[in-house]
């Protein structure tokens, strides 16, 4: 199917050709009045049209080349950012993973020592869970900046979403945010790296929570959707009733180090990592937002083999 082109785009693309045709029309009208020779009129008319066509093609090809250069420059800037991020991530990973390993081993000992005290055991388990979560964040950074094989397994999406919700449970309660879940029945299983997809939802939930400092509703809806090539896919819609994102910022929302938040804690990597993970699963991610009303993130994941 031919792509739709607006009138304005048509004029931009074929402007000179249109001018040439108009000039020919004017010339014919003028010549009709002064009754010049038919062959001369035709020859001049053809020459003017060919000239217009030639110049227009030249301009179009220059314009395409310029756009291509701009696109390449943008990609280069992006890959430079990623290379820098990769170097930082690799260094940080080693420095962070070692203390995390110490925390986990220390907590494991405490768990054995406190096995008869349910209350303290619960504390140690929460500490361990947080340490492992921090480890997953580091892995996420690494997998974003370097090509690491995904650990694929076939699984339902809902338990993964629910587990990501437990990571933000405390913040939800603290900010008085209600969770509204609408899970569809009989969704197909997805082949995915559970840790990474969990991180996707943790990132989205964290963003939603931060957008609703005064409370609100975090909506999570799942539904089956048919892929463009007939392949089934699962759609997950995460919505909030928060402050929303201005339109000019949405365009750059997936750029690394771009953030709409003012807090110093934000690295501007969350959505960039999220998109990287979704891309690796051959999925899609779209963001719609209305300032003052809220934001909707729509994730699509194919149900078949990746």
């Amino acid at each position, binding site marked *: 199917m031919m792509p739709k082109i607006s009138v304005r785009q048509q004029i931009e693309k074929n402007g000179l050709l249109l001018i040439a045709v108009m000039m020919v029309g004017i010339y014919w009208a003028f010549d009709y009045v002064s009754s010049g020779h038919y062959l001369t009129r035709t020859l001049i008319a053809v020459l003017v049209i060919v000239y217009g066509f030639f110049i227009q093609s030249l301009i179009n090809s220059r314009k395409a080349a310029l756009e291509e250069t701009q696109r390449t420059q943008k990609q280069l800037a992006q890959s430079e950012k990623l290379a820098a991020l990769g170097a930082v991530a690799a260094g940080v990973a080693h420095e962070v993973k070692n203390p995390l390993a110490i925390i986990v*081993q220390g907590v494991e000992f405490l768990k054995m020592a406190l096995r008869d005290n349910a209350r303290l055991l619960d504390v140690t388990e929460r500490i361990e869970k947080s340490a492992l979560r921090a480890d997953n964040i580091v892995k996420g950074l690494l997998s974003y900046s370097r090509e690491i094989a995904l650990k694929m397994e076939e699984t339902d999406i809902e338990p993964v979403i629910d587990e990501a919700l437990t990571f933000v449970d405390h913040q939800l309660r603290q900010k008085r945010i209600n969770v509204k879940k609408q899970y569809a029945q009989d969704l197909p299983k997805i082949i995915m790296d559970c840790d990474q997809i969990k991180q996707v939802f943790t990132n989205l939930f964290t963003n939603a929570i931060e957008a609703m400092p005064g409370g609100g509703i975090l909506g999570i809806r799942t539904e089956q959707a048919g892929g463009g090539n007939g392949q089934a896919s699962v759609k997950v819609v995460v919505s909030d009733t928060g402050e929303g994102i201005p339109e000019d910022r949405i365009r750059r929302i997936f750029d690394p180090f771009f953030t709409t938040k003012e807090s110093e804690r934000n690295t501007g990597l969350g959505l960039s990592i999220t998109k990287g993970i979704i891309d690796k699963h051959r999925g899609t991610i779209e963001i719609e937002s209305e300032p003052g009303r809220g934001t909707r993130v729509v994730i699509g994941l194919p149900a078949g083999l990746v």
Partner: protein
Amino acid sequence: MDFFKKLVPVTKKTVLIIDDEEDFCHFVKLNLEETKYFEVLTAYNGPDGIDLAIRYQPDLILLDIIMPNMTGTEVAEALRSNKATKDIPIIFLTAIVKRGEVGSTEYQFGGNFFIFKPVKLDELIHEIGAKIR
């Protein structure tokens, strides 16, 4: 002391940890010894680890990869080239790679195992058990 040994239901296996993270060695030692199945020796650098391995002939060595002065891979090569230690199974401990990356790295040689930090105790014991068995 002999009285206490009789209380232990199985023969203890000796594990040597070579890792420059002293706290990590300390906690792994505490955890493994708490299970009553292991006796744990610790070394905080490569040369000390090689000395202990030759002297005590442990059943298994847990070996960190990134260490100052002598890396884990160099330690492993030294152990493999020594008659007294060449058959001791080694499990590499690493904080830098994930499982998916190992296949294409320099770390894969001699059929060694890998454990990725941070590691939970049950996974650690499972891997040790699989290698000793």
